């Protein structure tokens, strides 16, 4: 039972970051119909931005985090403006391949600039974990959980409560009708991609200090983000949030009770199982291709 609770707590920490990754990806797919293969690279980018900010720039840990998120926002906006805007209206395969190209450039650029050796982001928290009964959690992980939950709440408030969010949702439902109602659809696309990118960068910046930072860290993160999005149904934000936590639970308990070597395989097996049983995802909307 103690072990069970410990796994549960670990899964919650991981799940928060996964949910951020998933929400970012599903937002971009749902609104822009772009399968974003730079998502993993942006996750890596967020982690390295955090690393640079807290080492080379000497910023405080709590200042470095918003710095990384804003850097992700800026990079996302730049990618949208240079690569996706000219390709608006191109078929989904073309944009997907262009995103793969951009992802390769970002990842190889990181490898070139920083080398392949893993880096550690210094943490300001005490090493001794917080112990509650039989469950212990490090202060850093606790902070990651709280920060991720806050960011998820902000994303929800932005999408459901703000004027920008309303314009996004309108564009999601029918971009032509939204444009006729005076929504600047081009701006919405840029804002969506930038927001999605910043969420991915935030996930990287949060998990970076927990693990280590290396150029290929985004590969697995990207595939997991796809898993989460499929689990929740493409384009569903609440689905992606739940999907993130479900994936984290599956990984944590799979690693704890089945085999730690196959920890990362859990997500993929879940995707395959979900698609076989219910191809529209667990929390599907009506619309689907094929």
């Amino acid at each position, binding site marked *: 039972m103690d072990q069970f609770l410990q796994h549960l707590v670990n899964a919650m920490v991981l799940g928060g970051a996964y949910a951020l990754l998933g929400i970012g990806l599903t937002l971009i797919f749902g609104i822009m119909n772009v399968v974003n293969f730079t998502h993993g690279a942006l996750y890596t980018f967020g982690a390295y931005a955090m690393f640079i900010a807290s080492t080379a720039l000497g910023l405080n840990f709590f200042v470095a985090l918003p710095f990384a998120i804003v850097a992700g926002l800026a990079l996302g906006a730049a990618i949208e403006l240079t690569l996706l805007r000219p390709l608006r209206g191109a078929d*989904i*395969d*073309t944009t997907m*391949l*262009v995103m793969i190209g951009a992802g390769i450039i970002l990842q190889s650029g990181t490898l070139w600039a920083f080398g392949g050796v893993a880096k550690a982001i210094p943490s300001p928290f005490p090493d001794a974990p917080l112990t509650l009964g039989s469950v212990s959690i490090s202060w850093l992980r606790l902070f990651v959980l709280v920060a991720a939950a806050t960011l998820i709440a902000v994303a929800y408030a932005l999408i459901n409560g703000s004027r920008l969010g309303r314009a996004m949702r309108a564009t999601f439902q029918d971009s032509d009708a939204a444009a006729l109602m005076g929504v600047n659809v081009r701006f919405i696309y840029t804002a969506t991609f930038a927001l999605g990118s910043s969420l991915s960068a935030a996930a990287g910046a949060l998990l970076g200090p927990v693990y280590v930072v290396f150029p290929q860290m985004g590969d697995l993160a990207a595939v997991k983000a796809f898993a989460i999005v499929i689990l929740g149904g493409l384009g569903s934000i609440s689905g992606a949030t739940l999907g993130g936590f479900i994936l984290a639970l599956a990984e944590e308990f799979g690693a704890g009770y089945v085999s730690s070597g196959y920890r990362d395989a859990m997500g993929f*097996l879940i995707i395959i199982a979900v698609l076989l049983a219910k191809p529209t995802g667990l929390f599907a909307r009506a619309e689907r291709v094929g």
Partner: protein
Amino acid sequence: MTRYLPPIVLVLLALAPLWLKDPYLLNALITGGIFTIGAISLNLLLGYTGQLSLGHIAFFGIGAYASALTTLGFDVGLFGDIRIVHAGWHPFAGLLVAILVSGACGYVVGRLSFRVRGAYFVIVTICFAEVVRLVALNWIELTQGPLALTSIPQMKIGFPGLGEMTLRTKAQNYYLMLAVATLAYVVVARLVGSRFGRAMRGLKENEQLAMSVGVNATRTLTVAAAISAAIAGAAGSLYAHYFRIIDPDVFLFAYTVTMVIMVVSGGKGALAGPVIGGLIFGTLPVALRPYMAPEAQWIVYGAVLIAILFVMPRGIAPYLDDWFAGRAAARSSAPVAKPQLEGQS
């Protein structure tokens, strides 16, 4: 003109080892050629059925492991008591087993994943490749995991009446690669020109319409996936016996990307597409190597991919086709146009 191009290119490629003595360049051609075979197989799916498989390296890797294990032999326990012991076979049998095993995997994956299309299919194929990589990494008893399978024997080919030949030199391996590539090209060309090929293209253009005239969508796509996987498996087998060492890194996503770049830049849905793309991206690392680090080369890869998609979204081969067609039209229309002008004056 375009009719005679493939045999001319084949003859030119066959002459390459006669004047190309640099082992490094020959090695680059063999490696590039092996991935070109993979690209030819990917083109069958991506170019003709329109389904983008981003897990194609799984079939390549499965072929490599199947061939290596068939040749090396193995001894694994299943569920504790049952042991499967296999003594090593002839490398050529390894190639055949690789084709069969990869083809069977392609059939099963196609059967399961063609319930979904588009972005879903892409993601399922990525997941499949990732699961296979993790199995190769963790099933240490069978695959040696990260320690890699080593000392894989070189390919041996028996000729009737001439005895058996072990492929030791680079030139011999080059000809084996070229033979398999040619075979793969011909198989895809025959398939595409057949009734089956029309069914595939029909599904790509308009699935509902194709089904309404009696095309069995799932069966056609599944068979295409199986054939495509079988060819990729053959390429994997060549890889295993040429490099003589394989580890779970053969399943890296980057290799799938290499094949996709070859197909897309050359022209998906064109027979020459993967060959043109393979020649460019097979030789690009050699051309770039003196000037930049491997990471920088990948940056160039990514940039070239984006540039090609922006400038020639359909790839190089269709543009060359148009160019040839334009010249042919200009030649045949010139004599016709003249009398008209004279008649007017």
